[in-house]
């Protein structure tokens, strides 16, 4: 297989592993907005 293709497929594999890790990790549900605190702009009690 061409070396470029190998590198590309390796990156695909890493991406799959990362997505599986995010889907299966325990603990916090994983806010869809990226940050753990999901920084809502001060909405709620201050």
């Amino acid at each position, binding site marked *: 297989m061409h070396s470029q*293709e190998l590198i590309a497929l390796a990156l695909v594999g890493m991406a799959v592993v*990362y997505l599986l890790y995010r889907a299966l990790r325990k603990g916090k*549900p*994983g*806010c*869809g907005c990226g940050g753990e605190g999901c920084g809502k*702009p001060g*909405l*709620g009690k*201050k």
Partner: protein
Amino acid sequence: MATEVSETSTASATRGMLTYAVVGNPNSGKTTLFNALTGLRQKVANYPGVTVEKKVGWCYSQHGKKIQLIDLPGTYSLSPRSRDESIARDVLFGLRADTPAPDRVICVVDACDLQRNLYLALQVIELGLPTIVVLTMMDLAKKAGHVIDVKALHAELGVPVIACALRDGVGLLELKLAISVADLKPVARRWRYAEPIEAAVAEIHEKLETDQGRTHAWAEAETLLQLTDFGKEEVAHLDTNLPVDRAAVTRWQQQFERDQFDWRRSIVESRYDFTGKMLDEALHSGPPQSKNFSDRVDEVLTHPVFGSFFMAAIMALVFYTIFTLASYPMDLIEGGFGALSEWVGKTLPEGALSSLLVDGVIAGVGGVVIFLPQILLLFFFISVMEESGYLARMALLLDRVMSKVGLHGRSFLPLLSGYACAIPGIMATRTIENERGRLITILVTPWMSCSARLPVYSLLIAAMVPDSEHGAWIKTGLMMAMYALGTLFVFLFAWIFKKTLIKGEQSALVMELPTYRAPMVRAVLGVMWERSILFLKKAGTVILAISIVLWFLTTYPKPPESPEIKADTPATEVVANTPAAAPAEGGTEVASDALANSYAGRMGKWMEPVIAPLGFDWKIGIGLVTSFAAREVFVGTMSIIHNVGDGEDNEQPLLDALRSDKRDDGSPVFTPLTCLSLMVFYVFALQCLSTIPVTWRETNSWKWALFQLGYMTAVAYGMSFLVYQGGRLLGFS
């Protein structure tokens, strides 16, 4: 200054870093103070197990020592009425394993409402921790005609009292000096409770002091809290950590009941009696003021008719600005990614890696990042409205409607949080005391169009509406319509649930309207910075990973190559077996066939019969599937798919690609009707999979989580079907 000392300070000089807890009533200026002291030196996380936001920051004393500050959720007293208030109590009492007890406390008191705010201050002082009372909004108190004798307050309370007007930086230096004091001592309680209460406290607290090694003051404070809270059914679910002798508390409560002594009321009254006497000395109000600025403005802004018009006008302005102002930086970002794509394409030799980077990563991530300016503008406006105090007025206006459909006025803030993201919105329902109202709010919150939908709406509206003289207003109207549609169905289904599945009594809304004030630029910019970091972090992680995987799915398997020609093959056979050369314009067709042959294409084709009645084709189907990870990935998906489908021209703008995309029969895919149907689908579909486990956890029931997924999917399909097929029946295309 002479202060009574009940015992030696609990501040640990041997522990590494001095820790202050910052506590105060909601809207007292607590977070403003926190931000003023810490600046950007903050970290936001969640308290494990209860998912309330935990904000920790750092600052430096005048001697250069690092000080940690914990910004606790706003609370009116240490008797919690909601989950986040119970966090404040538990942290102050040192009952959380994940958060060591603070060494000292900064108690923030709104100078415009001393009587109510000082109640919490008394409870905090009772804890026996070194405490500093900070009076905020002194400027507003002065304007209201209040003259506060800070020295008298200090003399009565026995703790340092710092007067601040943080918006102008007044008092910040004094506060920094106060928190730097090395030997700040706690003070003894200077107020007494009724004799029966004192007798109960004297007996019960002793056991805590001797058996559990608690300090005298802590034990007394804990006992008082238990006497007040233990046995109250409505807060029983919040009382999980306090270790007091329950049998003794129950015995004394029963004794008080036999004696017909309202001990809970007595404890509260004792504290208010003390603050009342204290304020007789320390607070001098001027002659009754004529209606202040806030009251005069509220006559209009909270008027049922004028207020609603004003609110609609504000929202129209917000969305119009998002469409017009954001286009300039968006064009810059688009140009930047285009240049990057071109450079990579020229630099790397042609091959899989080059294709991955150009058609996968840059197309996918770039397609989403381009919407950053719009999201920043959205949060700019939300933050300004919140900082100015207008958001609370919106809650009041909407409560009139919300209460009729079974939503609590307190549902407003969680619902409004849904405009950013449904997940913190659902978590924020913990402030709703009424469990029925809380459940309804959780079930409907995802229909508040979150910021992830904004790129999808923007793309489809742009595809629908060509640039013209009034194009920006038409786009604004369509955007508002999508937000309004989601909000309307929130109310509609809340009403349906109230009448059917989730019946019950509704509690009244008691809400505080903060004084109008100029938004703090620093706070607004802080929010925008925080959101941009979150957005870019998401783009660099989840969206990047999905773009890479999607590139693979749209590229493999590759179409079969021509068979090898053997040296001894007769010429006639070679001619017969050699495929005819593709015509010049068939390059795009070949690429499109390759896409259809790919894993993604096959998946899209498989689901196409299900989504065809909605006007969607298999390419849109691929976008719908990838949106389950994050809605805005739809945009990146379209970028990737249409770059592939459009052959070598990787720089063709996505809009042009969408407008020129054709179905198998030659008809355009992204007609206005299809775009509208797709937007309606995105309004209603519960696509963000992360929402499901959050609902599961917050309702403690997988059935409600599945119910939410089911009913939202059904409504999304049904409404989209209605729009598309109904539009076709009416002659639209």
